[in-house]
């Protein structure tokens, strides 16, 4: 035990004396959460639009008012001719132009039908889609409000509710993703680098010759990172909770236990990488490309897994962060207990055992 303690003490010395390590450990998580929380947003806010009102009557004015007062759009320009259309889009500021046909109110009254054309700048396809949806929604709303007086023979009312994230806030999506990403980065990359460094400097040989057995060495290596990763996880959850209002509906201790499981998984993965990597550079490279990119792209963090080609869906099934993100969202947003996430938990546990077994085997072979 004493040997183990002095080993862990030594590891803490390494960590606290290296500025680079400290920055990765504590600076990056903070910066990431704040960046993702504040900068990256899929929500519509103050989209600049232009209106070409060929009719200019009370109905078109009402509709325009409705749209601009929704908070999603601001009326930037009023245009009067076809040439202006191209000009405003090319200038790039305006993302949507709403065109009312001539004699709009009249037509609506007499023919019961009038046309609005929505033109969006689809050079950014996703937001163009959202802009059109939001605008159509507002216009639909208006149509049904003027129809209320007249009784239509048959009507279907759609009542929608966005469960678990009523305000559709992006932060709810990012906090679990960032947590998975940062724990992966800190745990897997830092341990793999720290083991690789000992290999590089030859100190690993010396401690392998010593009476410390490989298991003690590995445990001694990961213990400091377990502590620090856990602190990181708590920081991220606290930032999400206090700064961005991310709820924690479920059991906090279950949340912490699952986080611990994921940390151990990431650490065992880091050890596995380090047994394969001969140098710090290689360890870092493998961690970056084999862990970071898939975590960001394939875990469902940013892009929904259901929309991926089948083959990528299979690959994403192998990504541990995918399950961790599901677990986090379940506990934090839905408040579910273990009964609903036991499958994901079991998968993560299984992966952890596999990684530990593989690295133990590889580590022994080197002896």
């Amino acid at each position: 035990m004493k040997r183990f303690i002095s080993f862990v003490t030594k590891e803490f010395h390494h960590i606290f004396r290296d500025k680079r390590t400290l920055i990765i450990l504590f600076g990056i998580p903070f910066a990431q959460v704040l960046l993702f929380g504040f900068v990256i947003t899929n929500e519509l806010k103050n989209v600049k639009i232009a209106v070409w009102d060929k009719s200019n009557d009370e109905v078109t004015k009402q509709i325009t008012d409705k749209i601009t007062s929704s908070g999603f759009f601001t009326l930037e320009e009023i245009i009067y001719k076809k040439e202006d259309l191209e000009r405003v889009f090319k200038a790039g500021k305006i993302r949507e132009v709403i065109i009312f046909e001539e004699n709009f109110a009249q037509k609506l009254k007499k023919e019961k039908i009038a046309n609005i054309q929505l033109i969006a700048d689809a050079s950014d396809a996703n937001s163009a889609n959202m802009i059109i949806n939001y605008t159509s929604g507002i216009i639909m709303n208006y149509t049904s409000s003027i129809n209320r007086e007249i009784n239509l023979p048959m009507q279907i009312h759609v009542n929608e509710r966005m469960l678990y994230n009523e305000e559709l806030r992006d932060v709810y999506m990012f906090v679990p993703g960032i947590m998975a990403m940062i724990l992966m980065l800190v745990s897997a990359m830092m341990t793999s680098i720290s083991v690789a460094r000992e290999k590089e400097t030859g100190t690993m040989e010396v401690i392998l010759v010593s009476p410390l057995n490989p298991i003690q060495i590995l445990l001694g290596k990961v213990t400091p990172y377990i502590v620090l990763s856990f602190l990181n996880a708590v920081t991220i959850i606290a930032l999400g909770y206090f700064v961005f209002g991310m709820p924690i509906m479920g059991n906090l201790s279950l949340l912490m236990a699952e986080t611990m499981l994921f940390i151990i998984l990431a650490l065992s993965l880091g050890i596995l990488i380090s047994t394969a990597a001969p140098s710090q550079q290689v360890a870092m490279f493998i961690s970056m490309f084999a862990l970071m990119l898939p975590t960001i792209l394939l875990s469902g963090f940013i892009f929904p897994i259901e929309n991926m080609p089948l083959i990528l869906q299979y690959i994403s099934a192998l990504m541990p962060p995918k399950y961790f993100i599901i677990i986090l969202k379940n506990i934090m947003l839905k408040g579910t207990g273990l009964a609903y996430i036991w499958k994901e938990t079991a998968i993560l546990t299984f992966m952890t055992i596999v990684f530990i077994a593989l690295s133990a085997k590889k580590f022994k072979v080197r002896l």
Partner: protein
Amino acid sequence: MTQEKIITAKNMTKKFGHFVANDNLTFDVYKGEIFGFLGANGAGKTTAIRILCGLSMPSAGEIKVAGFDIYKQNEKIKKNIGYMSQKFSLYEDLTVYENLNFYASIYGMQKNEIKKKADELLEKLEFSYAKNKLIKDIPLGWKQKLAFSTAVFHNPKIVFLDEPTGGVDPVTRRQFWDLIYQTAEEGITVFVTTHYMDEAEYCDRVSIMDEGKIVALDTPLNLIEQYKVQNMDEVFVKIARK
């Protein structure tokens, strides 16, 4: 010097695929002697020392180190040996004392004992002023001495030195050999690999390896006589020409 055997190797063989790094090595090392393991780079010295230290498993052979079987009593061997790698492996971001303390404590030494012995050692080396300096801030020659002192700090029966004098100047090398002599006088067996032939003459006995085989094993003096030359360097040249 007693004739008690502290290392015995019979037909020690290590193969990597088709490549035979150690081909049926048979040798004994006696307690308290300085045993030199010589050979050109790639002759198989490092492979042999790694097997004896338990860093690598032999493909075949009967080997005992400090009286323990390397297949079955690996843990006991580890407690009784010290090892210094050719990289002078110390932690660059730890201080001189922290390095000593760390290595001593993983061998199970007590805190008070470590403290006392470390102070004595640093005083003897006239290096007390650097006790709290980081390793990365001290010169290479000192790193080498410290790496050696760390390897024998827990008072092992045998210390294995893998090319311990690479990259340092002749004066420092000479000083380093003084340290080795002192250690041997204290009864610690020294097993040292080197490719510097002048160092071979400092050893009690030397074995010369060539392409995985031991081609000569005797005292330096006997070898010089046997090959009818002036020094070990010429012995080596003669062997290599065969």
